[in-house]
Every structure is written in structure tokens, then in C-alpha cells.
């Protein structure tokens, strides 16, 4: 069965119309009798959407309008994010303009790290992984993920599947970084959003770049397969996508793109050479450690692990 991923260029800043078009192209049908909707943006840190790090609240606001158009104004909508190792959701909502957006749109902001969390397990690549998940996500009638396309040193690209990793209730998600690819696949086995709408207004390559793009799809895997091509990586070489195929999450042969041409966006994304960057970082800290051993000099705490 085909898994459609749509790419729509935002015209005249009309986000609502572009979202509707993206959903149509992705063949998304809103489920019937929906009472609770959860929208999960990507607020990994306090950097404004213009930096390419976080989901633009204007995109979330447009999705809220779209959902209300479908289900009426009484549908309960929550915009949810979890605390991260260095990020506190209460500040991220404030700093990134979500508090104001929630007031304007009369929706609730929700911290996925608060309240009783459910223990879930998943087995990936012979690793047994445990996750704490907020029941809100498990019980939502409609779960919409709104990730950002970004390059990331550890897993090459982060977008739809990694945004689900951000749903884990445990704040210190850095504990999963040793087996991050497995953890990304594992949590995607547990949490499957009904819809993914990628905020590609600004993407984060080696530096931020304006794309004015929205993408939509019902499978996080399929969205990431296309995003990977856009960010300059062969998706079959991205470890967590490879693992997903091995774990039968999705078949890449089913992925079908519709709308704009991926290659057009791929051309303008500033690519990162992670092998050299990663190696230079590694080398830099190794040298610093060796230098300290020889001289006994001070390493400022900010550079220490």
C-alpha cells in the first residue's frame, strides 16, 4: 500500500491553504468522531523558529484552525511537548511564542513530562528499551506531529521519527544517546501519530535556510525517507531508517512523493560533512584531555563532559 508524502510550497504566507493542499496530496482523511487532539511540535531548545531549531507557532496555529474547521470549535486541542535534558517545556512555551499562540487560539499547553507516565518497552536490534510515555499521547483520538527538518551529528537527520523520540516523558533523554538509532525506532513502535506535518518554512542544514515548505504524511518513516533525500543523505544509509526497515515498520518501496520536487529543495540545503565535523570535535576534546594530562592546566567546566 502506498504511503504518500506531500511537499507544498507556501504561497503568499497562506499557511491554512497550504496545509489543506498538503493533506489532500498526502491522501489524509480526518478520522470521524474525534474528541481529543494532541499536537506535538518540536521545541528541543529555546531557539526561535527562525534559527531552524524549533517548530514555528504559526504553523501550529494554522493546524489548529484546520482541525477546528473539521471538528468544530468544541474539540479539545492540546499542544504538547516534553522536557529535555537541557530544556524546560514551561520556558520553551513562553520563549518561543506558544503561550501567546495558545491564548489566541484558546488551546491548552501540556507538558508531557508531568503527571503519571506509563512504562513501555520495545525491542530493537536486540536492545530491550524502556520508555516512559504520557498516556495523553496513547489515548488521543488524533495525534499530529509537527517536526522540523534538521541535520544532526549523531543520527544524520532529525525530523518526523526523532520528534516522536521527543515525546518520551523522561527529561534526561541524553541517556538514550548511546543507542539513539534504536531508541528512535523503539519509540516509533510505541507511538504512531495519525498525521505528520513538517514545518519546513525554515530548515536547518549547516546553517538555517528558508524553504517555505510544508510536508505531510501519515507515516513518520515515509516522511523521514523523503526528508533524508532532501537533506542530502541516501535514506537507505541513515541508520534509524535502515533499522526501521529491518524492524518492518514500513517498506520504502511504498513511499510515494507528491507535489513539489524534492530535488529542488535538496539543492539549497547547506550540507554538513559530519565525518569531518564529528572527527574534528572528537580530536579537539582528545587533544584537550592529553594537554591537561601533560600540563595539569584547567579545563573550564563548560567544556567538560
Amino acid at each position, binding site marked *: 500500500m502506498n504511503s504518500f508524502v506531500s511537499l507544498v510550497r507556501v504561497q503568499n504566507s497562506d499557511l491554512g491553504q497550504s496545509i489543506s493542499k498538503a493533506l489532500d496530496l498526502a491522501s489524509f482523511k480526518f478520522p470521524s468522531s474525534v474528541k481529543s487532539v494532541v499536537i506535538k511540535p518540536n521545541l528541543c531548545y529555546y531557539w526561535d523558529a527562525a534559527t531552524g531549531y524549533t517548530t514555528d507557532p504559526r504553523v501550529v496555529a494554522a493546524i489548529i484552525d484546520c482541525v477546528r474547521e473539521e471538528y468544530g470549535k468544541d474539540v479539545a486541542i492540546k499542544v504538547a511537548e516534553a*522536557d529535555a535534558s*537541557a530544556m524546560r517545556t514551561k*520556558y520553551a512555551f513562553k520563549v518561543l511564542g506558544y503561550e501567546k499562540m495558545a491564548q489566541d487560539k484558546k488551546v491548552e499547553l501540556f507538558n508531557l513530562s508531568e503527571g503519571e507516565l506509563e512504562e513501555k518497552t520495545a525491542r530493537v536490534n536486540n536492545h530491550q528499551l524502556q520508555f516512559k510515555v504520557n498516556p495523553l499521547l496513547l489515548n488521543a483520538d488524533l495525534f499530529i506531529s509537527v517536526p522540523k527538518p534538521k541535520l544532526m551529528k549523531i543520527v544524520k537527520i532529525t525530523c518526523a521519527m526523532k520528534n516522536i523520540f521527543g515525546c518520551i516523558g523522561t527529561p534526561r533523554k541524553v541517556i538514550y544517546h548511546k543507542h539513539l538509532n534504536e531508541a528512535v525506532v523503539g519509540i516509533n513502535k510505541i507511538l504512531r501519530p495519525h498525521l505528520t506535518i513538517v514545518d519546513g518554512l525554515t530548515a536547518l542544514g549547516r546553517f538555517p535556510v528558508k524553504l517555505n515548505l510544508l510536508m505531510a504524511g501519515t507515516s513518520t518513516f515515509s516522511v523521514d525517507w523523503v526528508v533524508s533525500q532532501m537533506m542530502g543523505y541516501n535514506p537507505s544509509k541513515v541508520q534509524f531508517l535502515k533499522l526501521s526497515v529491518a524492524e518492518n515498520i514500513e517498506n520504502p518501496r511504498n513511499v510515494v512523493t507528491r507535489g513539489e520536487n524534492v530535488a529542488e529543495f535538496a539543492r539549497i540545503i547547506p550540507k554538513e560533512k559530519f565525518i569531518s565535523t564529528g572527527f574534528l570535535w572528537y580530536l579537539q576534546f582528545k587533544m584537550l584531555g592529553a*594537554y591537561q594530562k601533560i*600540563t595539569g592546566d584547567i579545563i*573550564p567546566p563548560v567544556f567538560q563532559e
Partner: protein
Amino acid sequence: MVNVGVIGLGRMGMLHLMSCLNIDGVKVVAASDPSTKALKKARKLGVNVLYEDYRDLLSKNSEVDAVVISLPNFLHLESVRLALEAGLHVFIEKPLAKNVEECREIVRLVEKTGKKLTVGNVLRFEEGIIKMKETLNSGSIGSLEVVTLEEIINGPFSHPRNPAPVADWWFDPEKSGGGVLLDLGCHLIDLFRFFVGEECEVDFSSLEYFFNLPVEDGAIVMLRSSNSVRGIINVGWYQKTVYPQFDFNIMLHGNSGYLSINDFRPKNLYTYAVKEGTKNILRKLTKRKIRPLSYTYHYEGFYKELVSFFDCIRNDSAPAVSAIEGMKTIELIEQAYEYGNSKKRLASLV
């Protein structure tokens, strides 16, 4: 030998502790922090007497001659008061205190006890700034007319190698005393006063709230000295840059020429680090004393300001940044807050 107690072992306190351990004629006899992890690290570094509560360090340890305090702003007055009353010399991380009223109390206590107190205005110890001041004093740019000082960084939003969430007190005006104007403004206003060497007042101020927080995260302040040198201060917490990227600029405009901090700083910090690191390795191999933190360029000032503090205790000389100096900076910051807030009030009335 100066016996020192280090109070507060956060990022800055830990750096001060490590610096103290590398200064000749200084012995770290105790340290305090509520975090068990921080205390464990201090023990690993060789500090054996550790306290969770700094008040215990000040009341129970009779060995200590001086303390280095790096606590949140709302604890500055209380900790300094207890230290001075215990007869100890004090190094206090900037700002001296969170408002002028608290600063006045500290100045009174310093005068009463006769102990040394210095404020950690580290930029005065940066090599480039010292050279800039020397060049200015040599008369090569004529008479100073305008100084522009800018520092835009990520402040409390910095993301260290070992990620940790920002402490809540930063955004509570009652506890912090203010936002970026107090945090970075106290460096740049101190530097303006350092270059100008005269009494100053605030001409204009604008406070920005890009992040919708209860404290300002951007500020532009215009100052004027009694000899009519004008200063433009631009500070912000809104930039996502990490070291060695550093959006920090100083320009001195004279009537005969100008100076830029960029002319006095290393062009490439990586090359500089390799060069300085190699020099230290050679010093070590030839059994000479290394220059701690010189390879980082910016962090060397933290070591030097402590050396200066301990020298002023040993030599009974004036501290580099006295309590009165620290208070004068806070007076200007308070003026800037008054101006900025009254402008906001006016705007809301219109």
C-alpha cells in the same frame, strides 16, 4: 599562605575552585554547595572539608582567611555579610548585589570591617582590553568621544557539553534583580567606567523582551560621563552562538583615531589555543610554571582576577574592582531600569 573557602560550585564556582588550586600561595581549605555531585567533584580535586550549606563553611571553619563566592544573585548580600562579619576577605562574582540598596549595605560592611572585597568583573583582566586601555592612555586616538560596547550571547540559555536545565532564579526578578542588563550590562557598564574613569549617568535606555520572560533579554543603554564621553551599551541573551563564537565588540572613538577590540584579540582562537597550549607544554617540560587557561584566551581573565584578589590581600593594596566601584555600576543599571520602565509605562498610556 592564604587559606580560601570556595562558596558555590556551579559552572563559575567550579572554574574559580580550579583556578584557586593553581595559584601559588593559596590553599583551598573548604568548599560548599548544596549539590552532592559538585561536592564529589571538589573532593576529587583535593578539597577535603566540604559543606552543603555555605553558612556552615562561614561559621564552623576557623581556618579560612578569604572566600570566593559564586552564588545566585539573591544570595550575594547574605553571603557577603556573613563572610565579612566572620572577618573574611571576599571575592564576589558579579554583580555585587541585585540592587543599589543591597550594594550600599555591602559597602557599609566593607568599610566597617576593613576587609578586602573585590567584584568579579573579569573583562578588566582580558589581555585585549588591558592593551586597549594602555593604547587609549598613550593618547594615540586623541580625546575619547564615544565608546560602543556590545555583548550578545545566549546567557542562561547556554547549552554546555553536559546538558542541564536553566535554574529558575534567572527569570524571577525578585531573585535575579533583573535580566541581561544586570547580567551582561554590569560587565559593559563597568568597562565604560574603566575606559572613561569619570562619574557617569544614563541618557537613554530601552529594554527588550524577545523571549516573553519576566526579565529583559535585550537592552540598549546610552551613558554620558561627566567629561561628556558618550557610551552605547548593547546587550542581549537572544543569540544561539557557542564558544569560540563570541559576539562581543568594543570600539573606542577618539577625535584623532579609533580602536577596536578586534585589533587586540587573536584572529583565530583555534590557532591561538594551539600556540599557547604548545608554550605551556614547553614550560612544563622545562619545569617552569605554566600560564593557566591562556590557551582559552577569554577564560584566562578568570584566573588573573583571582590572582589579583589574593595579591591585594597579601600586599594590603586596593582591590581591582572595589565594592564602591561595583555599586556605581549597579547605580547606573538601576537608572537604566528606571528609564526603560518609565518609557514602557509611557508607551502603555499612549
